[in-house]
């Protein structure tokens, strides 16, 4: 009897120790996996910090030389003797304005297309249109740049912009915003329009995805009580998907702020702040792209400082968008 219990308990103990061993090895595996994922996550932070630090080191000579004047000066004279004068006001202005105009065009169009695709579009043509929009997102920016340079720019300058200029010629303020003293193929507005076309697919693709997450029962209920399509979209679909839509818009804005090649091709690369959106300008990334290779010393440091500014600018814009989103959510919750 006792022998039997003995053997049973031995077996039990063996079983127990096996179990512990297995559990232990599993725990080890878990730990390794957790460590791996943790280090991957930290690596991202490390790279981010590394980029910021190297930008600051590269920009340091310009920071100490120009200080805060860098932000308020609109002159860009990299080879002035005895000391260059560099100011970021013109590229910052160009970056913000071109992104703003691009968003002004792309957001209504992008959301409109998304609403059409999810609410109104016949099933048979939905797929081809979605595919076309996704293809639009896949076109490399240099192609947009070339198209803007050879096709869109001349078309706008010769056929569209003279008309706009004529319409606003007698209205104060607007006649300087749409001033046509020097219409050319390359301008802030042309770059903005190209940017709008480039970011449109981002907004549409994300909006379509989030619109399709709206539970059909909600929409059906709304239609059931006699809502029109417009009322369903504005009172059910948009409020339900607000967060996702703003997320897509933010992503698009991030791309617009940093877009380089297409903009460099068609913005005109002029460090001047002009009241007219039909005048050439520059953006931070365009300035860096066109001048970095041939720059030295303080000039190069100034360009790196511009890069740092773009980094900060993008961060603040995205942070502001997040904040707005949080407020929206809070209000919706209350």
């Amino acid at each position, binding site marked *: 009897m006792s022998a039997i219990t003995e053997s049973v308990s031995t077996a039990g103990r063996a079983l127990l120790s096996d179990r512990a061993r297995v559990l232990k090895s599993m725990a080890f595996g878990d730990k390794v996996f957790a460590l791996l994922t943790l280090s991957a996550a930290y690596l991202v932070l490390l790279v981010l910090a590394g980029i910021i630090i190297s930008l600051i080191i*590269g920009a340091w000579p310009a920071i100490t030389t120009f200080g805060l004047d860098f932000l308020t000066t609109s*002159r*860009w*004279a*990299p*080879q*002035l*003797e005895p000391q260059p*004068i560099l100011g970021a006001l013109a590229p910052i202005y160009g970056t913000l304005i071109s992104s703003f105009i691009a968003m002004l065009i792309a957001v209504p169009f992008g959301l409109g297309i998304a609403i059409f695709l999810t609410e109104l579009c016949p099933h048979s043509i939905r797929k081809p249109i979605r595919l076309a929009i996704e293809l639009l997102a896949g076109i490399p920016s240099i192609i947009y740049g070339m198209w803007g*340079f*050879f096709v869109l*720019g*001349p078309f706008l*300058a*010769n056929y569209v912009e003279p008309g706009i200029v004529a319409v606003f010629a007698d209205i104060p303020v607007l006649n300087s915003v749409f001033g046509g*003293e*020097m*219409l*050319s*193929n*390359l301008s802030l507005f042309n770059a903005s329009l190209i940017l709008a076309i480039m970011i449109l697919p981002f907004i549409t693709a994300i909006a379509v995805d989030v619109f399709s997450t709206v539970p059909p029962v909600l929409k059906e209920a709304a239609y059931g009580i006699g809502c029109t399509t417009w009322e369903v979209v504005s009172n059910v679909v948009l409020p339900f998907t607000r967060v996702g839509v703003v997320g897509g818009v933010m992503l698009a804005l991030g791309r617009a702020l940093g877009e380089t090649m297409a903009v*460099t091709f068609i913005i*005109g*690369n*002029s*460090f*001047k702040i002009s009241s007219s959106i039909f005048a*050439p300008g*520059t953006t931070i990334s365009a300035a860096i792209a*066109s*001048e970095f*290779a*041939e*720059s*030295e010393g303080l*000039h*190069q440091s100034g360009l*790196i400082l511009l890069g740092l500014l773009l980094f900060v600018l993008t961060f603040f814009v995205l942070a502001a968008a997040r904040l707005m989103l949080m407020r929206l959510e809070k209000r919706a919750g209350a």
Partner: protein
Amino acid sequence: MKFSTLIAAGFAMVASISAAVAEDISGAGATFPFPIYSKWADAYKKASGVGLNYQSIGSGAGRKQIQAKTVTFGATDIPQKEAYLDQYGFVQFPMVMGGIVPIVNLEGVSGSDLTLSGETLANIYLGKIKKWDDAAIAALNPKAKLPSLPIIVIRRSDGSGTTFNFTTYLSAVSGEFKSKVGAGEAVEWPVGIGAAGNAGVSANVMQTKGSIGYVEYAYATQNGLAWTDMVNSAGKRVKPSLASFKAAASKGDWANAKRFNLILANSPGEASWPMMATTFILMYAEPVSAPASNAALKYFDWAYTNGGKMAEDLDYVPMPDSVVAQVRSAWKGIASK
């Protein structure tokens, strides 16, 4: 440490790999002489079996490459001053010359239909002359039908040797341009649209009605662009041509130029074209690799002896024999072992 060092190190890796494969002569720099360098290299490869690996990346970038010792020679359109040459231990010599021409895009205007003076050109680039039918332009071109179009000024957005030579000329003829803009590779332009490279400027002028730009002569002829004649320092109207470039080049006082530091702007003489550029080679007096340095000198020697006709075919002006003799004696300063 510094970005430029990092980039240079990256290029160095690429350069060392390609050098190991082909034993080519390696050089980097100005885009202005690239067409003739590649033509010479082609012919030289047939004659000697040695190829040339020339990176056409711009004068400033070329200087950075040779400073980082990643190439055997650097090419620059801007003559370097003695202090700079001594700092790095460089030997500098001129390789070939060429003309810079204003190009225009106006309906009904083709090559040599218009004439500009230095003063007028400077005022256009200062933004003081805004329309094509301005009195100053009309006075120079009484027969031309000038439209009342705004002048769209096109200039380089990148640092450029062509810009350096162009602005040196404008500064020489206009005191206002000198004080407001000055001469340099990347100046603070009061007006205009920036385009990258000689090719970018010609493409922009081709695309934009009422525009004016400045490029190396070959870019104007190859792209079929309309250029303007110029009034030179003797007050005579001259056409851009090999003959007028040669006339301007012959006025260069190379014998008295210290380390070949000479800018050919606004040359005297009735037949001289006013806007010229000379492209220079920079090499180490104490080369990193003597065989590579010798191979490069052999190529340049061959180019001076046999390359004149090829240069003229592309409207570049070869260096006069007296200057070549001067260059060959300067080469004695480069250690061959």
